[in-house]
């Protein structure tokens, strides 16, 4: 629990959380754009979810 608390404190220190959110957005976008096969993989996952819900 102390480790979780320490992690939370570290993340939310100063404005680090805003950098975290920005980094996640930019990082995910770059991965989707430039990692071969990632787009297809995501779409296949989404389609399997939709198929699962529809069945």
């Amino acid at each position, binding site marked *: 629990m102390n480790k979780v608390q320490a992690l*939370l404190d570290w*993340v939310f220190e100063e404005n680090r959380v805003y950098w975290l*959110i920005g980094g996640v957005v930019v990082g995910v*976008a770059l991965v989707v*754009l430039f990692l071969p096969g990632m*787009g297809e993989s*995501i779409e296949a996952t989404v389609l399997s979810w939709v198929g699962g819900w529809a069945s």
Partner: protein
Amino acid sequence: MGQMNGNLIDSLWNSRYARINSTLQRRGQWEPVDNEEVVGSEDGAVEPVANAVAAGTTSNLRKVLVLVGVLVLIPVVAIGTLALTSGSADGPSAFFGGGELVAGELVTGAEPDWSFVGDVGTIELQLLDPLRSRLIWVADYEGKLYVVSGYMTNPIGRLWKRWPAQAERDGRAVVRIEGKRYERTLVRILSGADILQGVSEELGRKYGFGGPGGIESGNVWLFELAPRGMGTTGASR
């Protein structure tokens, strides 16, 4: 001895919550509450304990919620990126429409034998105006290709599927089937019992399609993929 221990405990207690309140005050998250038990020294350096604990719990809850939001953001950004970039892609993907069909041999000349389409699940259909492509069901009947669009009497369907109306205005299209491109013209079919019945049966065989009733009622729009340059421009017949 007992008094000494009591003083030591009070000292440690006050020191601990003095640090908590100091942190909360620095972050602007501490507010004094009336009628709250005050534990602390006379100089006011130590503030209400219950208030500090409650504020700390709220602060942690907020942090956890923000972290959950960041985790939710990951798939949202990924799918959003795919959606934004799909418009410039060479053809549609499984989930999103695409842009102009570029790759693949452009087949010209004599009309092909379309019977192989019976084993093809979906084809890529691109209009010339606008230059957008999508995956679509296909059927061949008596040597001609047909495509359909459903949910056309449903407001959500009309909003979702705009290409049929665009094809009615300008039927010029390119289809890509098994890696080869064909220039076609979309012509909406409204009548012809034998065509409606035959195409419906083929679509039923391949996809479990309902029947010609949907086409006759206007819920399903049926288009023939006619050869380009036959004087047809997406008009109905």
